[in-house]
C-alpha cells in the first residue's frame, strides 16, 4: 500500500538556522502518527514544509506516491506562451495607440455618419506593417513576448508548491495559534474549508440561479453536519471570534475536515485544554481516523500522544532521533536524554 505521506531527506534552512535536517518518515493510510520533541525541535517547521508554507530547501514530499509540486507539462508551457502573446499585443497597442486611433478611427469617421467598420481593421494592419512602424512594432512585440513569457514562467516556478496546491492534493491542517476567520460565522468557516469542492461562480450568486441555490442548500446542510460531528452544532451561526477557546480549536478541526482530506495535520490540538476536554479530543481524533482520514499530529500532551498514536516520530534540534511505537519510544534512551538531559549532567 502506498504511504499517504512519504517524506524523504527533508531539509529546511532559514539563512543560518537549520530548522529541519534530513528528516525522513512515512505515514501509512489509516494510522495516527505523532511528531513529538522538545520546543524548537522543528515540528511546526516540518508541517510548514509539508504544507508548502515554507518550501523545503531540499528533500522530497510525496503524497500517495506522487510529488506534491506541480509537474512540468506542455499545458503549462502553452500558458506561459499565451501570457507572452497577450503581453505583446497589449504592449504594441500601448505603443501605437495614438497612430492607430488616428488611422483606423479618426480619419475614417464622418460626423454622425455610419462608420465603415470594415475598413478600420485593414487600415490598422497597414499601419502596423508599414515601413515606418514595422521595426518598432516587431521589436516591441518580441521584447514583450519574452518578458511576458518569462514573467509567467517565474511566477509558475515559485508557485509549484504553494499551500493551496497541497491542500487540494488532500492535506488539511490546523495551526498552533488558532487561525480562524474570526469575523465569519462557524458555519461560514466550515463552508470556506469546503471551498475546493464547490463549483458555483460569482455570476451564479448574483443572478440567484436555481442551480446556485440548490448547491448552497446542500453545502450548508453538509457543513452543519460536520459541525455537529465535532460537537459545535448549536454554535453554527455564532461569530468564530466569539467562541470559547476549546470550541475554536474544534472549529478549526471542522474546517480542516470540510475539505475531505486524505491526511489531517493537527498542530498541538490539545494545547490549553483541561483533562476533560483532552479526553473528548482523543475520542474525536479516533472518530476522524475511523472515518477514513489519516492523522499526523504534533503534540506535547504525553497522555494524548501515548494514548492514540500508532507510531511516534521524535525530533530534536531538527533531527529525527527516534521512530517507533509508543512503547519503543517510551523506553528509548535518546528520547529520554533529549527531554530530560543526559545522565549525570
Amino acid at each position, binding site marked *: 500500500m502506498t504511504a499517504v505521506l512519504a517524506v524523504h531527506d527533508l531539509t529546511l534552512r*532559514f539563512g543560518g538556522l537549520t530548522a529541519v535536517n534530513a528528516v525522513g518518515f512515512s505515514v501509512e493510510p489509516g494510522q495516527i502518527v505523532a511528531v513529538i520533541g522538545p520546543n524548537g525541535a522543528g515540528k*511546526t517547521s516540518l508541517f*510548514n514544509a509539508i504544507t508548502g*508554507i515554507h518550501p523545503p530547501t531540499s528533500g522530497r514530499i510525496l503524497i500517495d506516491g506522487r510529488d506534491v509540486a506541480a509537474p512540468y507539462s506542455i499545458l503549462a508551457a502553452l500558458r506561459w506562451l499565451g501570457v507572452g502573446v497577450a503581453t505583446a499585443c497589449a504592449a504594441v497597442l500601448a505603443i501605437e495607440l495614438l497612430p492607430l486611433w488616428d488611422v483606423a478611427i479618426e480619419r475614417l469617421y464622418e460626423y454622425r455618419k455610419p462608420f465603415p467598420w470594415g475598413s478600420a481593421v485593414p487600415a490598422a494592419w497597414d499601419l502596423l506593417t508599414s515601413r515606418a512602424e514595422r521595426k518598432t512594432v516587431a521589436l516591441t512585440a518580441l521584447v514583450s513576448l519574452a518578458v511576458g513569457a518569462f514573467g509567467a514562467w517565474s511566477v509558475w516556478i515559485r508557485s509549484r508548491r504553494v499551500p493551496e496546491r497541497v491542500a487540494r492534493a488532500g492535506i488539511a491542517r490546523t*495551526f*498552533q495559534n488558532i487561525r480562524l476567520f474570526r469575523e465569519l460565522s462557524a458555519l461560514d468557516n466550515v463552508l470556506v474549508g469546503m471551498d475546493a469542492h464547490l463549483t458555483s461562480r460569482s455570476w451564479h450568486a448574483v443572478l440567484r440561479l436555481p442551480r446556485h441555490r440548490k448547491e448552497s442548500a446542500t453545502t450548508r446542510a453538509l457543513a452543519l453536519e460536520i459541525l455537529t460531528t465535532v460537537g459545535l452544532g448549536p454554535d453554527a451561526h455564532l461569530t468564530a471570534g466569539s467562541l470559547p477557546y476549546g470550541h475554536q480549536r474544534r472549529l478549526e478541526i471542522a474546517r480542516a475536515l470540510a475539505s475531505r482530506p486524505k491526511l489531517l495535520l493537527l498542530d498541538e490540538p490539545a494545547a490549553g485544554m483541561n483533562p476533560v476536554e483532552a479526553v473528548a479530543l482523543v475520542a474525536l481524533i479516533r472518530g476522524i481516523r475511523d472515518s477514513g482520514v489519516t492523522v499526523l499530529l504534533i503534540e506535547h500532551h504525553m497522555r494524548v500522544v501515548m494514548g492514540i498514536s500508532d507510531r511516534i516520530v521524535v525530533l530534536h534540534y531538527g533531527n529525527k532521533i527516534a521512530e517507533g511505537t509508543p512503547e519503543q519510544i517510551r523506553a528509548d534512551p535518546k528520547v529520554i536524554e533529549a527531554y530530560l538531559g543526559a545522565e549525570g549532567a
Partner: protein
Amino acid sequence: MSWFEFVLQQLITGLTNGLIIALVALGYTMVYGIIELINFAHGDLVMLGAFLALTLIGACHLEGSPWLGLGLMLIAVPVFCAAVNWTVDRVAYRPIRHAPKLTALVSAIGVSFIFMNIGLFWGGAPMAVFGGGAAAASPKDVPDLIGHTNLLGSGSLVQITVKDALVALVTIPLMVALTWFVRRTRIGTAMRATAQNPMAARLMGIDVDRVIGATFIIGGALAGMAAVVQSLYYNTISFQMGYRIGLDAFTAAVLGGIGNLPGAVLGSIVIGLVRAFSDGYGATQWTNALVFLVLILVLVFRPSGILGAHVREKV
C-alpha cells in the same frame, strides 16, 4: 550645451531635488517604522512650515538680511513643525494606538485635510507677502532671499547655484546627525528597539509613548527644515503643495523599503533623478506617471523595496 554637460546638470538637479525629498521621506519612514502609520499629514506639515517661513520673511522683513533670516527660519520653523507634529500625535493618534492600522490612517487623512484648510486660511491673511489677503487659494511667491548665483562662475553652462549649495549644506549634515542619533544615543536605540518589537521594548522598561513622541518631534523638525529649504529653493508655496511633496516622499520611502532610513534617502535620490531626467528630456507631462512606473517595476521584483527586509510571517 554638450551631452555630457546636459547629463551633469540633470544629475545635479536630480540630486538636489532628491535631498529635499529625502528630508521629508525620513520623517515618513521613521513614523511608519515605529507605529506602522502612513502619516498622510506629513506633507501638509511641510506646507504649514513653508507658510510660517513666508510669514517670518514678511513680518521680520528678512529680505534685507538674508543670512540672518535663514538662520532664524532654520530654528523657528523646525521647532514649530516639531511642536505641531507632537501635538497631533498626542491628540489624534495616541488615543487610538490600539485600534487597527486603518483607523489611524483615516485619522491621518483627517489631520491632513485640517492642515490643508489651515493653509488655505493662512493664505488669506492680510499680509503683503500673501498678496494682501485676496485670492487665498492661489500660490504665493517667496522672495528670492539668497539669490541664484552660479557657484561655477557665470560663464559655465552647468549650474551649481547657491541654492543647490544651501540644500546640500542643510540636508547632508542633518542626515549624518540623524544617523548618529539613531545609532549612538539612548533614545535612538530605544526608537530602533520599539520599531522592531514594541512589546519587548515595553518589557525592557522603555516608555514607548515617549519614544513615539520623540519620533514625531524629530520627524516634525525634519519636515520643518525641508519646508525652509523647499520654499527658498522653489520660491513658491501653495496650500496644496503638501500633496505632491508627501506623495513623492512616501513613494521614496516605499521605494527604498519603508521603515529603513538609508532606504528612504536612496529612494528619494532615485525619484529626484527620475524627475530631473524626465523633465530635462522634455517629457514633463509624463513625469508623474514615470515615477510610479519605476515604483511599480521595483516592487514587482523586490516587493519589500530596494533595501527593505522581507518580514516572515510567524506561523
